[in-house]
């Protein structure tokens, strides 16, 4: 029997070991650090009590179960969504610069949120979600044509619509007066007010993504290889629609609730690809865990640094890492 010997690539077991170690460390940091100081035994004791308990040390219990755990889970699932969507976008659009926001989802979400904040700060999440879905629809209408060679058209449509929304956003900020600050803070992204209500939609989005990824894993390899998919029997239009539509929808859940968190979808896929090769059987599962680890760690650090916006932290840390990868590739 012949097996692929991925010579020159890191064995996949090392990848899993490294990523899972980072994830455990990140989850622990997220639960342990914060305004209320907990000892390690107290943390584990509170965790072992399970949900719905009424212990004597009510503060420690509430801190762990009501504040930190939902926050850690939200960051973890958001990171998994952003990184795996990065993998999907880069494969389907066959472009190393593609990321989950390439089709304007973030621009739409930002514009929607800014509108809601300007007009009274109610329904920000709903407006933001509507904004990102509306933008996706317009970009798709403009950019998608049947046929193989139109990937750049879709990217261009995303960039153009994004620029228009960017201008609109600047206008809103200029007109928002004292609410400008609220818009700016929203844009930077944060998990500081994450709660248990955020977990069901995120886990649904994540499950849908896992399903799409397992159905289309071979298809993503063909699309990423740069070959003409239809010559190999791939229905390119349909596959692209499912993958980009599903990924954008999942990302909309994240950005509309927590703001624009950049670089996770760009850095994690590239880093894993360099270490493990481009095959999506290996890349996709690891990107779920890798993205989860990175964003959970970034959120723990953001919390430790006096609630810095997590979007700023991922960009500040992710940016230089990305530069390093780019430099190494030469």
């Amino acid at each position, binding site marked *: 029997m012949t097996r692929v010997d991925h010579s020159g690539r890191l064995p996949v077991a090392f990848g899993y070991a490294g990523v899972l170690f980072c994830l455990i460390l990140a989850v622990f940091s997220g639960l342990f650090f914060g305004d209320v100081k907990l000892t390690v035994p107290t943390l584990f004791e509170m965790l072992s009590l399970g949900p719905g308990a009424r212990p004597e040390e009510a503060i420690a219990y509430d801190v762990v179960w009501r504040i930190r755990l939902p926050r850690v889970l939200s960051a973890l699932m958001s990171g998994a969504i952003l990184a795996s969507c990065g993998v999907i976008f880069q494969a389907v659009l066959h472009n190393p610069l593609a990321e989950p926001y390439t089709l304007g989802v973030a621009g739409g979400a930002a514009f929607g949120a800014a509108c809601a904040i300007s007009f009274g700060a109610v329904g920000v999440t709903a407006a933001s979600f509507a904004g990102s879905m509306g933008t996706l629809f317009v970009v798709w209408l403009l950019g998608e044509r049947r046929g193989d060679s139109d990937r750049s058209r879709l990217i261009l449509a995303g960039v153009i619509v994004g620029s228009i929304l960017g201008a609109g956003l600047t206008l809103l900020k200029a007109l928002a007066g004292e609410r400008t600050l609220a818009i700016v803070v929203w844009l930077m992204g944060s998990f500081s007010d994450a709660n248990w209500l955020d977990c069901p939609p995120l886990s649904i989005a994540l499950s849908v993504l896992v399903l799409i990824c397992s159905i289309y894993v071979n298809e993503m*390899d063909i699309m990423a290889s740069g*070959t003409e998919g239809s*010559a190999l029997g791939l*229905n390119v239009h349909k596959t692209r629609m499912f993958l980009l539509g599903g990924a954008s929808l999942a990302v909309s859940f994240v950005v509309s609730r927590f703001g624009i968190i950049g670089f996770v979808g760009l850095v994690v896929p590239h880093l894993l*690809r360099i270490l493990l090769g481009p095959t999506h059987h290996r890349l996709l599962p690891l990107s779920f865990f890798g993205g989860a680890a990175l964003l959970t760690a970034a959120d723990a650090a953001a919390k430790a640094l006096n609630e810095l916006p997590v979007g700023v932290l991922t960009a500040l840390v992710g940016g230089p890492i990305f530069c390093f990868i780019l430099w190494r590739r030469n």
Partner: protein
Amino acid sequence: MLSVDKLSVSLGGREILLPDTMSFSIEPGEVVSLLGPNGSGKSTLLRALAGLIKKNTGEILFDAADTSSLSVKERARIFAHAPQSERFSSDYTVLESVVMGRYPYLRSLDSYNSDDYQTAMDSLERVDLAGFENRIVTKLSGGESARVVIARAITQDSPVLLLDEPAAALDPKHARIVMELLKEISDDGRIILMAMHDINLAISSADRLLFLVDGALVGDMSSSNITEDILERVYGIPWEIWSTGSDARLVAIPGKYITL
């Protein structure tokens, strides 16, 4: 049998293949070479047959069944298309790239199995790339990646192989290896249709020649019946055809292009 009846294709509003002339059929086991100057429609014809571009009018029949109603996957089980040059741009290994030729047979949620990998390995050996399976495709030479594309098309195991200039990037030895391989494949009753520029390679390796000029099919003959006239008509320069000594092989030599 592959039958093409009054096929026409338009790209950007311009008619690339002219339907009045575009009718021919190819028997199983035939190796056919498509000859014609740049822009005569050779690649377009191959791509239309493979279903990569839409035909305007006409019919493409395989074993008397219309191919236009087939799904993309079903079509890929009948037609394998090897493009002239492949833009390999991701760091897949040679084996990972070649095994993608098994995609038309893959069911949803399945992965390539050991038989698929074995078929891919066999194809690599047949194009003289044994030992290359773990090399990264983006780091291969032009001729090597051309052979990866041919190996992938063979791995597709389809009854019709459409190859766009399969030997253009190959050295004489590997051009010969690939031509002999295609001959061998055709002996199983498969159809080989390949666009070519090397007339002598076409004469020596194809049973039959089809000539295209400006989207029109202007000649259809057995390789041994090639004439100086048709070559001059197709390429616009004079030709001499010589027969070599003992085995009476034909050799075509281009003459001067006279502008006056």
